[in-house]
């Protein structure tokens, strides 16, 4: 029997996609285009995932787990064909423990839906990537997803208490922070599907805050806005979120959504603080004072829930809004120490100008996590070359400032050759020991994270085709 036939026999026709028109979409994530897989499987249970892995092993095919495919670096697309396991049908919350503030969820559960389902219990799930309306908990775990609220709440790995994993041989094991031993949970989160396939996650939930305030300041340029952010953090205030957008991005956001951002400034700073009533006024005064000390042109507090929601929707929809400016964009995910933000932004501006590129900046300023967004037309090879050149310069500049190449999007396929800019051969060999234990044959999402040896290069970022 062929791979496809064996999978159909094990999981049923309805769970197995083989037609070319069905497979084509799985060659894409939010950035890359690869070759389609040999087959796509949509399991409904851990048992079916395990059966899939065993059959794939028997047929010598690699396995690529996939959530919603919102990734930005080719993590969920096949580099060497094989079997894509889509978790679209494993999308439920299995258990909610309100007193202990935890839940067990399937990997295909959409991030925002988790928070919506637990809201009436007075709880929420903190990691909130901009993709959260679509992205799944499993995908979030695979990339250790961040988001604006990670500034004070931490990233996904700080909210995962345990995992149920199908390993490279199709066997199931569980990990738990409640158990003594190595923190396999912490190692698996962020491993981008290369160490095991997440089939369930125990997540930590938080109490909905008593009080939430959102403020908006505008500045003449991103440098002033980022100096304000650095000053806020340095003063010992860590708000729940500190986000910056420059005028390029704000113009696109307002044209697309009419979110309420001022379009006459060089940059806007969106601040949120959640906590107790008792602290809010003093916090607001302190942050406003710092903003004015650093040249804020305007300052306002969002008065209604609707206003807050609109501002956040505008921020989270920023990348999508740039579609009206240029046909393609390339978004980086560099992270620098917070005090280096103004320098990093200056480097971004210089590189963009030197290469004649339009760049927009939208970023998690409080964490030092920048997302320079370079706009171009991939049909113009000169622009493509400019994007690559500027991108490399920005990457190196941020590393030189003490930063790193990815704060939250992950390495995937697209960034794997830049890992050696940050880590030595010994560092990478140490990581490879872990992969050697959990995936000795290289069947789990091959060609991801680590720099290429002599390997297939079938995945191309959409930009470079």
């Amino acid at each position, binding site marked *: 029997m062929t791979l496809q036939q064996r999978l159909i026999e094990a999981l049923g026709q309805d769970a197995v996609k083989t037609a070319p028109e069905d497979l084509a979409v799985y060659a894409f994530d939010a950035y890359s285009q690869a070759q389609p897989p040999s087959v796509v499987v949509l399991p409904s249970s851990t048992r079916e995932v395990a059966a899939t892995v065993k059959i794939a092993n028997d047929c010598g095919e690699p396995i690529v787990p996939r959530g919603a495919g919102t990734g930005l670096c080719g993590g969920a697309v096949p580099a060497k064909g094989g079997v894509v396991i889509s978790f679209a049908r494993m999308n439920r919350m299995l258990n909610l423990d309100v007193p202990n503030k935890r839940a067990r969820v399937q990997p295909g559960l959409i991030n925002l839906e988790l928070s919506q389902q637990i809201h009436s219990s007075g709880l929420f799930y903190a990691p909130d990537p901009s993709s959260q309306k679509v992205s799944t908990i499993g995908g979030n775990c695979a990339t250790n997803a961040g988001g604006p609220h990670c500034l004070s709440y931490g990233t996904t790995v700080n909210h995962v208490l345990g995992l149920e994993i199908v390993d490279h041989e199709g066997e199931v094991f569980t990990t738990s922070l409640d*158990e003594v031993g190595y923190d*396999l949970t912490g190692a698996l989160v962020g491993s981008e599907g290369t160490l095991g396939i997440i089939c369930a996650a125990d997540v930590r939930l938080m109490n909905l805050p008593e009080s939430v305030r959102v403020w908006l300041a505008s500045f003449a340029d991103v440098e002033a806005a980022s100096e304000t952010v650095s000053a806020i953090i340095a003063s010992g205030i860590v708000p729940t979120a500190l986000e910056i957008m420059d005028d390029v991005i704000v113009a696109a956001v307002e044209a697309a959504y009419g979110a309420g951002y001022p379009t006459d400034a060089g940059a806007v700073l969106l601040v949120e603080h959640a906590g107790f009533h008792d602290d809010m006024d003093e916090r607001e005064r302190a942050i406003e004072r710092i903003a004015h000390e650093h040249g804020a042109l305007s300052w306002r507090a969002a008065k209604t829930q609707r206003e807050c929601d609109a501002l956040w929707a505008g921020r989270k929809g920023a990348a999508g809004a740039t579609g009206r400016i240029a046909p393609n964009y390339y978004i980086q995910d560099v992270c620098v120490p917070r005090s280096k933000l103004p320098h990093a932004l200056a480097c971004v501006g210089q590189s963009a100008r030197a290469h004649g590129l339009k760049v927009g900046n939208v970023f998690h300023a409080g964490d030092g996590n920048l997302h320079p967004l370079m706009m171009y037309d991939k049909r113009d090879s000169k622009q493509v070359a400019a994007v690559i050149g500027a991108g490399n310069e920005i990457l190196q500049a941020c590393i030189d400032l003490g930063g790193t190449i990815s704060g939250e999007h992950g390495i995937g396929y697209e960034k794997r050759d830049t890992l050696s800019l940050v880590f*030595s051969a010994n560092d990478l060999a140490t990581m490879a020991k872990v992969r050697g234990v959990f995936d000795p044959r290289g069947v789990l999402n091959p060609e991801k994270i680590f720099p290429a040896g002599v390997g297939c290069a079938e995945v191309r970022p959409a930009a470079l085709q």
Partner: protein
Amino acid sequence: MRSETTINTNRIVPKTVPQLQTFVREANERGSALRIEGGNTLRGMGKPLSREGATLCTTALRAVHTYTFADLTVSVGAGITLRALRSLLAEHDQFVPLDAPRAQHATVGGTLAAGWLGPRRHLFGRPRDYVIGTHIVLADGTLAAAGGMVVKNVTGYDMSKLYVGSFGTLGILVSANFKTLPAPPCARVFIAKLPEETRLRATAAVARLEVTPSAALWIYGFKKSVDGEDGIDGRILLLLEGSSPLIERATRDVRSALGRAGVPETQVIDTGALQAYDRAVDACVATIGERSVTFRLSGTPQDSEARVRAVYVIARKHELAAESILDLMNGDLFARVSGKDARAFSQRIEGLDDALHDVFPKTMLVAGDSPIRSALNVWGEPAAAIAQMRALKAAFDPKGTLNPGRFVGGI
């Protein structure tokens, strides 16, 4: 039975990382074992080494590498004490929530390696959540870096997560980078005697407080070591942290809640609040000569009552005394069991240990200076994924140079 107190007089205290690397590499090449030690404050945890070896101590590696307070990040040598780190960060009103016993001796590296979990973790998170980068020396002497100095980092595997809680069996932490937090401006401790009949109502009331206490501990016994009380009755110790207005509001709520639960007047400590809290943390591993051991039984706050009762019943049955510190917010129970003298203790403790593990298989031992300790089930039932953990150990330390046999499951 091998005596726990045999001292291998070969104790190495490298002054630099390259020196440490050389010692490790040479030991590995010889096939020797190494016992890794920081401040030795958690020596009561784990099994003795399966092979005799020299002790390699990291306390000389205590430099402050970088402290950019404006970034809220710090990088320190693993041999720095928790107290020294605290003082350094306090100068800029910052801290890292690494609540481990005997902070004046405990090292950052040892605390991380032991995976010690403190009472404030329900609010602030675990120590592993604050580690943003590490340098580690592997069994063959290689130095490897992980993470960096930024607070969000998904560049490659998060190796630091594996090192924290690995008990020195994957490698030796030589430096750690942390993200820091602004320190709460105020701290206040409440201590109230908790007569038996009020205990359950009081603990339920604490769970319902709107302003969550940083820590809530119910203490029974530990005469004079926590709060100067004689320890006959239980006491509740609450730590509140935050701004001054928040503390005042929380104080009103605590008095009201405990009052309604029938608890007599509470004692309030402002100056020295954190020191009072530290004394309770220290008590979790305090031993009584060679006639006590302390177990840690984890669970949820909801099932803690059953665990407390079971410990006292089992202790009584084995004619041993029991004292306890119950972490009301996280559910951990620290139970110190002791005998009238060392002989009586060592005759009875194995039976108690067996009985306790029959009911609570994951019970762990966290303190004890008695030689009998090495015969006890110190780690409890291994994790479900113990096979994968053993495979990692084999990959990182194939010759078993680093702390062989010390950790769970024979690792």
